[in-house]
């Protein structure tokens, strides 16, 4: 069996598993999974830039927030229908990524981390500054009536789960496909050795810009999806914490692997969920486990499985 075949089976298997879980899991865990899938979209977007292109952004919350506010504000003030608002949200993030990319990609390495961090901080302050519209830290609620997707009520457990699932599946399969295209392979080439890629005639700057735009778009779609499914838009989502989360998820799950982002989000969520059931010092437990993982599986869970057992893992 070729590795492409195996990857396809894996990807569709993961999606089939998510469908089955809906029917066998108790309600609480179904709710958790909805949230995990939305955040996994965010992690997928981050992974394209960090895991495949080798660019570490510390400001991805600005793209998540651009999607979330782009979506929320046109619904609240423009009365947009949900599908149009999803497009507005996603495109806002893409436009922001284009502008930030043109400036930030003039730097590399640590400077790129700092510049993206600063841009994200600016975005956070912009959200607070326009508190009249964004309601700042307090945020605003989107009413049930405003959140109907083609007549489907996404506020029910089933509607929410399968909307999250559909959006996740599209991004998951789309990005898995993208990294197999010549474009995707060139991103990996840039990650591995940018100078060599350039001296093979590839325009590294342009490839990185495109990667950032797609990454920002997917992150923005995640933000818009969150607002759609959970009905809340708030400044917390543009804070630095939400720039660090995707990095943690992707590192834990396995950077540069297709299933790493989902594994990372799932692992992190249940790690905190379960440890907080036993002790108040759950952050300590989480911290120790994260340190152990970093020491013994520096390539993340999927990366560990790939090196040890399944070299074909995409």
């Amino acid at each position, binding site marked *: 069996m070729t590795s492409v075949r195996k990857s396809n089976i894996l990807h569709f298997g993961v999606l089939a598993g998510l469908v089955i879980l809906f029917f066998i899991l108790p309600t609480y865990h179904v709710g958790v999974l909805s949230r995990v899938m939305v955040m996994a979209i965010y992690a997928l977007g981050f992974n394209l830039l960090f895991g495949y292109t080798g660019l570490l952004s510390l400001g991805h919350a600005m793209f998540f927030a651009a999607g979330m506010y782009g979506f929320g504000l046109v619904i609240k003030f423009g009365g947009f229908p949900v599908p149009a608002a999803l497009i507005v949200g996603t495109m806002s993030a893409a436009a922001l990524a284009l502008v930030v990319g043109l400036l930030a990609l003039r730097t590399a390495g640590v400077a790129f981390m700092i510049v993206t961090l600063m841009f994200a901080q600016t975005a956070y302050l912009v959200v607070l500054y326009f508190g009249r519209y964004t309601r700042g830290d307090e945020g605003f609620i989107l009413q049930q009536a405003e959140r109907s997707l083609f007549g489907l009520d996404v506020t029910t457990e089933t509607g929410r789960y399968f909307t999250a699932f559909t959006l996740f599946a599209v991004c998951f399969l789309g990005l898995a496909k993208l990294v197999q295209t*010549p474009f995707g*392979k*060139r991103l*990996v*080439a840039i990650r*591995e*050795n940018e*100078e*060599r*890629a*350039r*001296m*093979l*005639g*590839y*325009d*590294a700057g342009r490839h990185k810009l495109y990667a950032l735009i797609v990454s920002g778009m997917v992150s923005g779609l995640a933000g818009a999806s969150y607002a759609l499914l959970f009905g809340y838009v708030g400044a917390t989502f543009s804070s630095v914490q939400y720039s660090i989360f995707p990095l943690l998820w992707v590192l834990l799950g396995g950077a540069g692997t297709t299933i790493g982002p989902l594994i990372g989000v799932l692992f992190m969520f249940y790690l905190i969920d379960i440890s907080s059931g036993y002790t108040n010092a759950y952050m300590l437990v989480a911290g120790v486990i994260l340190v152990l993982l970093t020491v013994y599986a520096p390539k993340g869970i999927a990366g560990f499985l790939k090196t040890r057992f399944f070299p074909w893992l995409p």
Partner: protein
Amino acid sequence: MAAMSILETKGLTKIYGGLAANTDIDFTLAKGKVTALIGPNGAGKSTFVGMVSGRTAATRGRVYFEGQDISHLPAHRRIQLGLAYTFQITSVFRGLSVYENIELAAGRTLANKPSLLKEKVRTVLERVGIADRADQIAGELSYGHQRILEIAMGLAQDPKLFILDEPTQGLAETEVDDFIALIRSLAGETTILLIEHNMRVVMATADFITVLDQGMVLAEGTPEEIHKNKAVQAAYLGTTVDA
């Protein structure tokens, strides 16, 4: 001669903070031939090919490729015109397989033609004799094989001009023999500009030799002419011309 040349530089100069690495280099490269660029350490050979390939920005001067002024093109655009460059210090995609390395090199022009691409990668792998290592991770290859992979990545691009910066550095003698045979087999197919310290390789492969010394062209000619040139002997042996 002009019709036969593929690359020309005029007054090419590089100054690093007051230190001239290359001064007014006028150079013409004969099409379809192997030209070796030699000179003592620090003569400015790598700086020169760096400016030709676009890796290093020239302080002044012009570079013409097939009659077109490419002085202001970034490196990747020059490569797209048909220039290939192999690094002096091995630079491959260490985390990727040998196959993927060559696929990326050939893929700039062939990525959308999968069957042609596959064939090209196979042909190149066989030509340089590393077909049996196609699935190995490049970073795990021996040094000699990494050098060969680097050359293979140049070949895979079907370059009009192939610049090799000290390709045999660190190779074993038998590997050097293979390299000489490979360069000879390329004669007529493409134009080669070879920076080389190993005089055995130069004498066995070069049609023409250009000698750089202290950032300037010291001598140009056929291997026999260079061999007899007193100024060249002086530069290499460290004596004056009169001595």
